[in-house]
């Protein structure tokens, strides 16, 4: 498959994520949208890695083949850690204000 489909998919996913973050107020949905954006990037990383690997095959450059894909795992691990922290925050938030609406958390103001 041509690279442009992957890029198209990634951009679409990313834009959906951004739109979600911007428009929704529910903290959990915002979280999901952030995951969406992260995964859009992951898709791109894998796709480009595969593409460069094909062109670099004859040149004995093994690192080019695997780097992008390895990076994806890192992002996944970090995202998982982030989710665990984030969810903990959301739980605490719910316990305190009985809501997961982010606009409720503007108490620091004034």
């Amino acid at each position, binding site marked *: 498959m041509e690279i442009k489909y992957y890029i198209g998919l990634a951009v679409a996913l990313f834009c959906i994520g951004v739109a979600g973050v911007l*428009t929704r107020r529910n903290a959990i949905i915002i979280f999901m949208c952030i995951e969406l954006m992260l995964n859009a990037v992951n898709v791109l990383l894998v796709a480009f890695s595969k593409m460069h690997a094909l062109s670099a095959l004859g040149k004995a450059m093994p690192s080019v083949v695997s780097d992008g894909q390895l990076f994806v795992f890192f992002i996944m691990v970090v995202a998982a850690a982030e989710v665990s922290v984030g969810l903990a925050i959301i739980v605490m938030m719910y316990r305190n204000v009985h809501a997961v609406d982010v606009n409720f958390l503007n108490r620091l103001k004034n």
Partner: protein
Amino acid sequence: MNNVLQLVWLIPVLPLLGFLINGLGRKHLSKGLSGLIGSGTVLGSLVISILVFLSVKNGNTPVIHYFDFINAGSLKIGFDFQVDQLSSLFLLIITGVGFLIHVYSTSYMHEEEPKDFAKYFAYLNLFVFSMLLLVMGANYVIMFIGWEGVGLCSYLLIGFWFRNNNYNNAAKKAFVMNRIGDLGFLLAVFWLINKTGTTDFQGVFAGISKLTTTDITGITLLLFVGATGKSAQIPLYTWLPDAMAGPTPVSALIHAATMVTAGIYMIARSNILYSMAPVTQAVVAIVGLSTAILAATIALRQNDIKKVLAYSTVSQLGYMFLGLGVGAYTGAVFHVMTHAFFKALLFLGAGSVIHAMSGEQDMRNMGGLKKYMGITHLTFLLGCLAIAGMPPFAGFFSKDEILAAVYAKNPVLWGIGVAGAMMTAFYMFRLYAMTFLGKFRGTHEQEHHLHESPMAITIPLMVLTLLSVVGGWVGIPEALMKGGHHFAEFLAPVFAQSDAITVKHTMTHSTEYMLMIVSVSLALVTLVYAWMKFSKYEKTDKEETGIGKVLENKWYVDELYQTMITRPIQFMSKYFNEVLERKGIDGFVNGVGKAVNYGSRQVRLLQSGQVGAYVLLMVLGILVLFIIQLFL
């Protein structure tokens, strides 16, 4: 006799000790004790000075090194004392006249509170210490320490009665005027260090060949600027008459006998530099002569007894500078000595009169004091004769020597100088006649109170009178007595170097006789005229007119300085304060603060607390970066 030289350091240290004891213990010492300490320390210095003088007379003229004062790289300035003919002579004048004035002060200042009394003696001792340092220093730096010290003491003592604001202003005026001169002195010292690498008198005079004519002229002119400040010459003389605000003994000691002669001492000390700079010599002579005449004309119409004496001092200092300018160093130093005697006498006599008159200083309210104050009257009369240059009193010999040297250089200057001497005779006998002759013109209360002053006042007067009468006999000119000029012989080693390079003007003895007769007879005529005119003086309410008014107002020089210098400076300061400082600098600094304040208040609105808004802004920012990346 050599052992005496080991005691030299005690000469300035004794008054310093007196200063410390009186200054620190002023709240605990009784009047008698602080007077005793003040006078006793100076008496101690006087005794050692006499011993040192005798030792110097036998030919001991060492430079005594105590410790390194400044030692930086190639520049070495030692704390050295120069003991030679010139400094030992000044030591005698300072400690001798100083001691008499200390004794006089114990009585004159008796009405002060004990702590003010002790403070007065502390200042006076500090002054003597600084003045001794000034004349004993073996280099320009040590001299400068004393130079500044006497200026400080002058300030403190002029403003001694500091509750009177006018007196404070007079003190400030003296200090500021002196500072202007000191700057010249300081620049000259820097110049010397730059060119010769030393400030030692001996080093500088030995290495004089290293200096170009420009250097010498510049250095000597700058030193002379210093001298005009300290010795009250045109254009910096106006502080001295105002300095009369201080107690009268202070005027006698500082503003007549010693401090104001510091400039003459300094030039006499640097005589070789001046002898090699004819331009400076001409400047010194002209400034000296103009000051002598200007001050003498002002003195003609002053009514304050101390103001007359103050202008007379300025005028006599002018004569000394005239003498220095024509190369008559011995004559100038001789006049310093005789002037110290008779001017201290006149000031102390005036103090005695003021004391008797309960503080009155206006001569128009005096008169007829002769019959109340016998000793003061007699001593004052002899002092007046001495300053008027009547033979055989001291003033005759010294003034005659200066005028003779001036005649040899330029008869026109001599003529002007004699005119000044006539004015001297006139104003002194105007003062004498208005004070002591005629009828008493004061109030009845004052008349009732009139009395001769106590012994502590009259004894110094008598001693000074004796000195004013016989003090000139050490310098009888060759024309009158062969080998009579012991003074010149004594000082000859100091001026030997410059004597060697100056052209000698020899005069026949008949010319000298003629000069003496002319100046003495002219002075005598004016003296008698003034005596006749003012012994019948009556108080009038008539305003002075014409030239008399101008003289009474001191040629309006103070007003001139006020408009020419003080006002523009004040105007400028006001302008800088109101426009540059308030609007410019303050405006800028406050403006920065205000701008930051305003800006942050506006930017703060972005922090809405809405997470959505932050994210939106972030996304917009990223988009902008994208657009820049892609299209620009």
